[in-house]
């Protein structure tokens, strides 16, 4: 059964209630610490452990990756595609290393599985594009993130 709460006449005209609410708004506007930032000009600092855009670490210009396929094995989204090959200075290297970022769920398991410390997730989080992006090897090696 719905019980109607009795209100006194002052409450009935709402004016005082509106002023009370407005007071809280004005108090927060003028005196409370600000939680938003001016985004493009101001940037937030994320933790070093933030999982953002991928990159492949390189040592002396040679990618660390040996195409062992452990990252596509653990990847739950199946977004990593590698083709292995052989060249003079490296027994096994990735001929093709592609990450289909739209499928990626940024779980970071590739980073965890990598025995060569090659695939990493950087702190870059601005990855919106107007087309379906597939990161290829050249991009991933070049892209060192903010680290």
């Amino acid at each position, binding site marked *: 059964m719905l019980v109607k709460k009795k209100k006194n006449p002052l409450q009935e005209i709402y004016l005082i209630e509106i002023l009370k609410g407005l007071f809280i708004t004005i108090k927060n506007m003028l005196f409370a610490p600000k939680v938003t930032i001016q985004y493009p000009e101001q940037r937030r600092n994320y933790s070093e452990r933030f999982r953002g855009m991928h990159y492949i670490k390189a040592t002396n210009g040679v990618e660390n990756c040996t*195409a062992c396929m452990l990252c596509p094995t653990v990847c739950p989204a199946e977004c990593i595609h590698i083709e*292995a090959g*052989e060249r003079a200075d490296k*027994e096994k290297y990735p001929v093709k290393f592609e990450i289909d970022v739209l499928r990626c769920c940024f779980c970071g398991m590739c980073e965890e599985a990598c025995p*060569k410390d090659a695939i990493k997730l950087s702190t870059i989080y601005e990855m919106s594009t107007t087309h379906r992006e597939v990161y290829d090897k050249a991009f991933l090696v070049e892209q060192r993130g903010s680290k």
Partner: protein
Amino acid sequence: MPKCIIDGREVEFTPGKNIIEVAKEVGISIPFFCYHPGLSVVAQCRMCAVEIEKMPKLQTACSTVPTEGMVIKTKSDRVLQAQKATMEFLLINHPLDCPICDKAGECDLQDNSFGFGDAYSRYTEERRTYMDLDMGPVIKKNMNRCIHCTRCIRFGDEIAGIREMVAVQRGNNTEITTSDGRALETDYAGNYADICPTGSLTLHDFRFKKRVWFLTKTATVCEGCSRGCNIDLHHDAGVIQRCTPRENLAINKYWICDEGRFNFHYVNDESRITDPVLVEAGHLNSVEWASGLDQARKLMAGKKALVLLGSDLTQEEGKLLKEFFPKHLPNAQVFHFGTPGVSDSKSDADADKILKRKSKTANLHGMESLGFKPFEKAPAGCEVALVIRGGRAVVPALNGLRAIGIGVFQKEHAKDFSVILPGASFAEKDGTVVNFAGHEQKVARAITPPGQSKLLPEVLMMWINQKAVGAA
């Protein structure tokens, strides 16, 4: 049967079998490297050491046969200690390159290290390294990974019948190599990669193609010759990546020849015709099935036809065609064909002393038992030829007859044909083949037929039922 006791269990055994085999039958696995059921026993890896009561020292399970009342312990503290020590010794010089090793995932050394070894190495000195010489087109050697089990040496000696692998130097410096560093000569070289318990000997053909844990195995039968060796096709995402022998003691034991091992390549080959095509002046025009069939029927209509069936078809397909021709193409003269020079089962014989047979198609003996006659010469008066084959039978010269092909054809075949309707290879169909000794074996479907290829029953149904294009 006599009984012995393994790990507290009373086990009946056949006299003569070694402890590894006896224990395996009751589900107790003993780790080993150098032992292989198809090869002689040398007991040199020491991994299979077990404790036997009343014997002062540990015994190798591969070289010891159980006797009545023998008490064997495979998991006692002494055994575990010995296994750990053996693993540590074997891994002293083994490089930590599992990420780039093709064997990783099916490696005995990896499995046993995980199961019986220590997770850490105490070895700090420099590891020995080798320069690897080329071993020919089949096998890629990486001596750094070798643990000197000598399975490859024994395989060459005992199975392949050519002693081409040798161990030079001694002790820590032992190197397994071919004599004078020449290329491997045997036709069974692929087996070296299968029996190697580490990644020392791997296939050039499979090098870096796929990690083994991505592959799905389909148990099937090789179509390379009338031996009918049992094989596993390893495939992923509709592409066959490699082929390995499957144990069948009655037929191929543990082995397979290189011809059979690398035979699957035509299945995913780019030059394979996977659309119905009309051949006009050497040019291939892909068409719809309906118009391809239409053209084929038009060519055949009312003419005296020569029908050639490849002896690489399965029994089921053979039976189906046997009933199809009298009903729907009464003018047809039907023959089977396969290998040039081997027209019937009488001329089929062993091609070597191991596995290979002269007939290079799997079902020659089965097609013959269905009553098809071997093809020798086109009978007079034939105007058109219909060739139905899998991927293996060699198309004989048709002497300028207009020809229709159903089955697996490569682009280089096309010049002899007017119409080609794509069919399924041995990896794409289920069926039965009969080998030279009369064993009926199952061929299993591993992948789906590529492109617009269709199975033979489907093609024949369309041939009968589908109305001509444009007909009301």
